[in-house]
C-alpha cells in the first residue's frame, strides 16, 4: 500500500438539532498540498474545519490523519498531527505576542522538552519570516485585527504539525499582508507540509491554492483545480451574484470579478 494521505475524510456528516450542517463530505489531502475551502456564508466551511479537529463531534463518517483514526487519537496526539486557527483571533488577556506564539509550542514541549533559549530562538525565526518582529513585545489586546491574525498564524506554525487547518486567516489582512501570508503558506507546503484553508476571497483562493473544495449547504459541490471549480454558472448559482471569471492577462491566474447591479439574496 502507498503512503497514507495526511488527511482522509470519508462520509463526514454533522447534524445539530436535526439540521444537517454537513452532509457526506469526502476529502483527501496529500503531503505538500495547499487546498482551499470556498463557499458562501453559512455553507459549512468553519463547521467542516471544527469537525476535522473534533471540536464538533462528527455525526457520521471517518476522519484519518496519516492513517490513524481521529477518534483513536488523544487530544495531545491529535495536536501533533494537525494545528488549527480559529476564525476570530480572540484575545482576552494582555499576553505579549511572543507569549501567544510560545503557546503554540506547549503541546510538543510536553513530549520533547524545549529549553527557553531554544523556544525564544524558534519564535524569533518565525517572527522574522512573517516580518512581525516589531510586534513581539506588544500586547495582543492592543494589536489590530490583522496583526493579531499574523500572530496567531505564527502560533499555529510553532505547533510544527504536518497539516494546518486555517479558518479565514486573512479576513482582516490588507492585500500586502494577505499575499505575504499566502506566500508563506505556499512555501510552508512546499516542504511536504499541507494546509486546508477556508477563504472568502475567490481570487486569492484561485491564485494560491492548487486545489479548491466548493461547499454549499453543507455539501461538497465541486472539488479540483481552480479552473475546474470556479465557473461563472456555479458561483452565480450558489453565491447569488453574477461574476466574470477570467484569467489575468499578465499572470494567467484566475480572477473573479463581480458584475454590478445584481442583488445578493439571502436564502
Amino acid at each position, binding site marked *: 500500500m502507498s503512503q497514507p494521505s495526511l488527511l482522509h475524510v470519508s462520509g463526514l456528516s454533522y447534524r445539530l438539532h436535526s439540521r444537517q450542517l454537513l452532509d457526506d463530505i469526502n476529502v483527501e489531502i496529500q503531503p505538500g498540498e495547499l487546498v482551499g475551502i470556498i463557499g458562501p456564508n453559512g455553507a459549512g466551511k468553519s463547521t467542516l474545519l471544527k469537525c476535522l479537529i473534533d471540536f464538533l463531534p462528527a455525526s457520521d463518517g471517518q476522519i484519518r490523519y496519516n492513517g490513524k483514526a481521529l477518534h483513536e487519537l488523544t487530544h495531545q496526539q491529535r*495536536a501533533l498531527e494537525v494545528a488549527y486557527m480559529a476564525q476570530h483571533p*480572540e*484575545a482576552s*488577556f494582555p499576553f505579549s505576542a511572543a507569549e501567544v506564539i510560545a503557546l503554540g509550542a506547549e*503541546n510538543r514541549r510536553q513530549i520533547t522538552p524545549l529549553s527557553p533559549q531554544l523556544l525564544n530562538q524558534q519564535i524569533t525565526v518565525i517572527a522574522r519570516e512573517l516580518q512581525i518582529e516589531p510586534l513581539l513585545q506588544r500586547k495582543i489586546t492592543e494589536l489590530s485585527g490583522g496583526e493579531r491574525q499574523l500572530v496567531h498564524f505564527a502560533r499555529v506554525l510553532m505547533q510544527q504539525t504536518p497539516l494546518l487547518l486555517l479558518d479565514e486567516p486573512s479576513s482582516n489582512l490588507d492585500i500586502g499582508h494577505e499575499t505575504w501570508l499566502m506566500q508563506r503558506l505556499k512555501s510552508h507546503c512546499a516542504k511536504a507540509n499541507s494546509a486546508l484553508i477556508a477563504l472568502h476571497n475567490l481570487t486569492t483562493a484561485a491564485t494560491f491554492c492548487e486545489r479548491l473544495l466548493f461547499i454549499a449547504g453543507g455539501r461538497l459541490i465541486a472539488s479540483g483545480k481552480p479552473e475546474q471549480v470556479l465557473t461563472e454558472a456555479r458561483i452565480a448559482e450558489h453565491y447569488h451574484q453574477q461574476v466574470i471569471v477570467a484569467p489575468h492577462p499578465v499572470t494567467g491566474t484566475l480572477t473573479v470579478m463581480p458584475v454590478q447591479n445584481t442583488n445578493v439574496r439571502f436564502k
Partner: protein
Amino acid sequence: MLNVDRLPRSIRLSLGIFAVLLLLLAYLSFGAIQLPVAEILQVLKLTLSGSFEQAQQAYPKTAAILVHIRLPRAIAAMLTGAALALAGACMQGLFRNPLASPDILGVSAGSSLGAVIAITTGMSLIHPLMIPLFSITGALLTAGLVYLIALRTASQRQLLFLILTGLALSSLLNGAVSATLLMARQYEISQFIFWTMGGLEGRLWPHVLWPAPFLLVIGLISLRQSTALNLITLGEENAHGMGLNVKQHRQKTLLLSASLTALAISIGGPIGFIGLMVPHLVRLIIGPDHRKLLPIAAITGSCFVLLADLLGRCLLAPHEIKVGIITSVIGGSYFIYLIARIQKQGATL
C-alpha cells in the same frame, strides 16, 4: 524609583518572603492586647521545638494568646485569602473575563442556605463546626446542581449557561434563605447576619485544622491548571486545536474553584471581593501568565486578608471590625479607582 523588575529573581523572592513574615509577625503582635515581638519569637521557638509547657511557664500570657487565639486565626486568614484569590484567578482565566468571581456557580447562596439551616435548626448550638459543615454542604450541592443543569447545553455554550443557571439558582436559594429567616428568632437572625458579613473572630484550631489539608491539596492541583488556563485565553477552539481537552479542563477547574471557595467560606464566611479583586490587581502588576499569576495571587490573597483582619482588630481596639467589612470597603474603593483610571487614561480592564 526602585524598579523591582530589574532585581534578580532570588532577591525578589527573598524580599517577598521577608514582607510576608513581617506582616505575619505584625498580625501576631498587634491587637486588643499587644504582644512583644521578642516574646512571640521565643514562644514560637519553644513551641516548635516541642516544649510548649516551658513557653507557657516563661510567658504565660503571650503563650496563651499566641498559640490558642492569634495563630489559628492568622492561619484561618491566610487560608481563606489564598483559597479565594486562587479560585478567582482560575475562574477569571476559565471564563476569559478579568472580572469573573469565584461565586459564579452559586456557591455563596448555597453556603448561606446551609448556614441559615444550621442556625435556625439549632444545630449550630450543638457544635461550633456545624455552621462550617452545613455551609460547605450547601455550597457544594449548589455548585453541583448548577453544573448538572448547565451540562445539558452544547459544550460551546456551556459557560454562558453556567452563569445563567448560577444566577437563577442563587436567586432561588436567597429567596429560601429570606423565607427561613422570616420564621427565625431574633437572635438567630442576628447570628446569621453576622455570619454573612464574613469574619474570623473566634476561629480556633478546629476551625482551620480540618479544612487545611483539603485546601492544600486542592490548591496544589489548581496551580497545575496554569498552562491549560493560558491556552484557554486564546479561545476554546484554539485551545482545543493546541491539544487541550477543553471539556475536561473546564470540569476540573470548576470543581477545584468551587471547592476552594466553599472551603474558604466555611472558615471565614463569605468574605467579599477577594476572589475578584486580588487576581485582577496581581494581573495588572505581573501580567496574565497563569504560571506566575496563580501562585502570586494566592500569596497576595493570604496577605491581603491578614492585613485586612489586622486592621479590623486594631482600628477600634478593643472592638473589632469584621474582616468582611474591611475587604468590602477596600474592594469598593478599588473599583472606583479602576473606573477613574479607565476614564482618564483609556486603560483596559
